[in-house]
């Protein structure tokens, strides 16, 4: 079976001026099958978010290509949708308007936007908050809106950029289980960027480990815990061993990254 998402030889160098250039990504090769849940972990500054933006079409790679279902990505499209870190919601729009935002940009009719928005509001547990504004919501609820907004355009691939990084530990765990159940009910292909190794292991079929700048694929670790998964598996010894194994892969990189000066 052909992979849904194929990343071939992607490199990215940011050039600020003639003297300073930052190599963010070097020769990334990854294939992701339809319906797969893949996470990327790595030290800060390993270019994870850059890769996600290249896949989404917000950034152009310096070299290499990204193909979705055989089509080369050149710009954002409705086959991919991005869930950003906090505060990517429009503060002057209600929950319902924010969820329907992608559809209204695509010039869908008002009634269709409202109907679809409502479906994803219900799916993400936002029922009753349709008329609220983002600043009236907790961090967890805001991220629900973010996820619902991305799902509403019915993408084939959902790209999540550290979606739970700003949440407290308890809320984060709840959101992880909710993301899993959404994934199971919608069968989307998901690519998640995270700093939390346990989050990556808990959610994914496969964890891709990035090295620090320039970001390169250091290793790909399959995660074979049976699905559906419960939070309780986080306390199993096998889970801990896997987290440990991945941590050892990036520990030295994280330490090196701490001493790096931007």
């Amino acid at each position, binding site marked *: 079976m052909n992979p849904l998402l194929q990343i071939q030889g992607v490199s990215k160098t940011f050039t600020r001026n003639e003297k300073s250039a930052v190599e963010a990504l070097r020769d990334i090769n990854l294939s992701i099958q339809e319906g797969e849940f893949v996470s990327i972990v790595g030290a800060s500054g390993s270019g994870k978010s850059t890769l996600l933006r290249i896949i989404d*079409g917000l950034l152009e790679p310096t070299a290499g290509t990204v193909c979705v279902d055989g089509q080369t990505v050149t710009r954002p499209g*409705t086959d991919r949708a991005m869930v950003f870190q906090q505060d990517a*919601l429009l503060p002057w729009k209600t929950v319902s308007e924010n969820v329907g935002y992608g559809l209204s*940009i695509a010039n869908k009719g008002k009634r269709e936007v409202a109907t679809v928005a409502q479906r994803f509001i219900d799916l993400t547990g936002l029922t009753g908050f349709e008329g609220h*504004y983002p*600043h009236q919501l907790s961090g967890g609820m805001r991220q629900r809106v973010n996820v619902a907004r991305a799902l509403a355009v019915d993408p084939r691939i959902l790209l999540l950029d550290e979606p739970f990084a700003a949440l407290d530990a308890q809320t984060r765990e709840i959101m992880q289980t909710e993301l899993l159940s959404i994934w199971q009910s919608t069968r989307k292909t998901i690519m998640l960027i995270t700093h939390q190794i346990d989050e990556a292991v808990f959610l994914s079929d496969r964890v891709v480990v990035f090295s620090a700048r320039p970001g390169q694929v250091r290793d790909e670790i399959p995660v074979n815990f049976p699905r559906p998964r419960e939070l309780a598996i986080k306390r199993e010894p096998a889970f801990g061993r896997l987290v440990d194994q991945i941590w050892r892969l990036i520990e030295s990189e994280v330490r090196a990254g701490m001493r790096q000066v931007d």
Partner: protein
Amino acid sequence: MRIALSTLCILLVWQLLALVVTNRLLLVPPADVASALMKELKAGAIATNALATVTAVVTSFIVSVVLGVAIGSALASSRLLSLTGGPVLSALNSVPIIALAPLFIAWLGLGFASKFVLVLLVAVFPEVVTTEAGLRATDKPLIEAAQSFNATRFQVFTNVTFPFALPFIVSGIRVAWARALVGIVVAEFFGSFAGFGYAIMSASQTFDTAKVLGYVILLGAMGLIGSAAFATLERRLAPWKFE
């Protein structure tokens, strides 16, 4: 409530000062000002002056807002324009345009046209500056999110950057309103046949201090009403900034 209280305080201090300063050319007590205003009102002079001042300042102000927002948007949308046009505008902004009032009157004659142009020139800059600043200050993730949904440049403007800039623009409008009032009075000082500025000028030439102060108070009220209205509008437009 707060406004009523501070007005009362000012009236009290004023009254006390008027007891000490007895030269009625320098200072008159509030009651005299009130009766001077009543006399003007009955004579119909307030209505005539208000009509002249308000029509000129309001038309000119509206045009300045539209123009300022348009120029500010253009500057924010293009780096080249901002680099070339920006310095010209800030140079113009630092010129005391008020000082050119006699020149405008020489060019455009006494009356509406010279007032209109002078007010336009003093009031347009705050809107240009705040519009450009507001558009540029838009949170980058908001723009990225729109682009991620394949929004066109125009959609990014109407959906994201312009709504984000609106409260900035309104605060610019507030500043511009105060400047517009200064502009209109100066324009009327130098040459016109009606208006608050004209009335103040002619009253001061006849040493009618009560009338001068009366019209100044009317101008102050106009400024206050505008400022309060725009402040309310600002809070309405961006409730997330005030919580």
